[in-house]
């Protein structure tokens, strides 16, 4: 693996959910690199800790043991503000439930992350949002509200939103869990395209279809990650 292409490096990551009564071990001493221009698939049984892992990767969970380097930054040394900034610049997150603002049109949903990005000129935001929606095949639907879109279309709006600030890392937690097979295919094709464009795409999915698109498949089992030969 070429060094400069590595965007994410996990070293000895261990995650326990601790509360008063329990101490649940979810991830046990995981070390792994993720690189540019690759489509990673993470599979595993429900409750094995896939979401936990991808949340750590997405910097939305920073309570874990071990070292996490993203773009050369050691996550444990970063404060909340720095983490937010890295999320804004480098990470696009896609959820199973889309999480679109129902009161905003497709284009307005895509604009939300751009408002806080000083690198995008005010004048070019709108055209950029349209371009992104065009890229996911929704050029005709930019002024539709989420309720006027199908599940697949909504997820594609969510993908466009995740791409708004042009991140290099795309994380998706069961992005097609709520979609039929036609829409599922479309979403994976989008994600594949992104990895071909040079992004590091990491997808958690149960779908068999996903394996066709993945460059590397990992299975999370018994708190550890194993590479699965395709």
């Amino acid at each position: 693996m070429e060094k400069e292409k590595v965007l994410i490096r996990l070293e000895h990551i261990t995650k326990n959910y601790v509360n008063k009564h329990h101490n649940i071990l979810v991830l046990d001493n995981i070390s792994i690199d993720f690189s540019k221009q690759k489509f990673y698939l993470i599979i595993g049984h429900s409750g094995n800790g896939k979401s936990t892992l991808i949340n750590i990767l997405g910097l939305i969970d920073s309570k874990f043991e071990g070292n996490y380097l993203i773009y050369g930054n050691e996550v444990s040394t970063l404060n909340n503000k720095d983490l937010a900034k890295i999320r804004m610049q480098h990470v696009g997150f896609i959820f199973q439930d889309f999480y679109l603002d129902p009161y905003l049109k497709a284009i307005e949903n895509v604009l939300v992350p751009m408002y806080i990005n000083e690198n995008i000129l005010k004048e070019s935001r709108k055209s950029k949002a349209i371009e992104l929606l065009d890229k996911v095949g929704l050029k005709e639907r930019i002024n539709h509200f989420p309720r006027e879109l199908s599940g697949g279309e909504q997820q594609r709006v969510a993908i466009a939103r995740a791409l708004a600030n042009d991140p290099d890392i795309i994380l998706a937690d069961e992005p097609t869990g709520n979609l039929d097979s036609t829409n599922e295919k479309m979403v994976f094709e989008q994600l594949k395209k992104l990895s071909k464009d040079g992004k590091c795409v990491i997808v958690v999915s149960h779908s068999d279809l996903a394996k066709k698109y993945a460059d590397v498949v990992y299975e999370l089992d018994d708190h550890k990650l194993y590479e699965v030969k395709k």
Partner: protein
Amino acid sequence: MNLREFFKNTFIGIFRDKRKLFYVVVLLICSLIAFSILTFKNNFDMYVNETITRNIGFRTLSVSPKQDKEDLGLSELNLLEHVIDVYSFQYSSMSVESSFKNENIEGTIELLYGSPDIQPNIIMGRGFQSDDSNVAICPNIFYPDSSAYELQLDNKYTINGNSLLNNEFEVYYTESIFDTDTNTFEDGKKFSEKFKVIGVYDNTSVMNFNNQCYIMSNDIKKMVSKAGLDNIGENSYPYFDLVVDNVDNIEEVMGKIKDLGFRKVSVKNYFDSDMKKTIEVSSIIVVTILVFLTIIISSSYIKKLVINDSWKIGILKTLGYNQMKVLKKYFGEASLINIIIYFFSFLIFEIIFLFLKFIIFSSIQYIGINIRVSLFPVIVTFIIIVIIPLLTMFYNIYKYSKQNIIDLLRKSDQK
């Protein structure tokens, strides 16, 4: 996000999200109520302070005489604390003809009992001094005609009081003699007196008529006696007019007079102090209710917006908004909405108010009530409609903006 986008997005939000629209409408109504109640209360207070308390009639008591006492109780009354003057009621006023008479006005003037302690606020010239005699204080808009009592002034013939300053006028009156055989009054001798106008006062602000001039007590006593108006018959005794130094002391003085054994005491121009209390208490109650209402409304609004939809904050944070930016977005929007509500309701209130003022209030301005919007309701409403809700909301938004993303997203998964 620049200011224009911020305004635009906020406005769009109000019209798309029914919860926001509902909040705006409800708070707008609260705001209008606050403006109305506080303006009413404020005007009532001003009316009491500027008019009632300056009209001497509101601090003049009518006291029944003690028939068994030689001086009818006068000396006892004079000794009481807070009592400025006591005199027989016949001396309180006297209606006379005057040299102002011409083909357009009758010249009728009403002379009122005055002294250095009993006189209205002078707006030009000077007030009474203890050794004055044959001097008068007249209205700034002077209308010596009996139609002044009906508040009907013919503006063409009103006299600018200021122009009278230091000029003399003459009054004419006739002795009336009671004929015990026929039981009628008959005219007797004719008299006249000259008065110099030394001061001018604003009669509407103290609810006096435009033909009422104050003269010194000794002058009016002399004139009433000469005219025989203080002669009220063999077995009748005159009531006393008793002037108290301050409206607030009326209750106390009345109590003391009753303690002294005078049978009847009443306020000449009765002002219902219960009404004042009722208005005071009910406006405090309404304002308190409004304060609690806006707290409840704004916290349930923000609950719906922030707590029920906490996933939105979770998503914003996922997309790279830090706590400060989340806070700015939500609180900025809430502030703008509340300020919009405030200004909009102020505008509506002001339009309704001007409309009412033009239609209704203009008719009551004659009797000294000048309704106006002052700073008091504007500030208090701002506190109720903007400051208090925003503090409530800030607390809630702050609490949720600092939660971690997973909790924020999970909370709404469960609903």
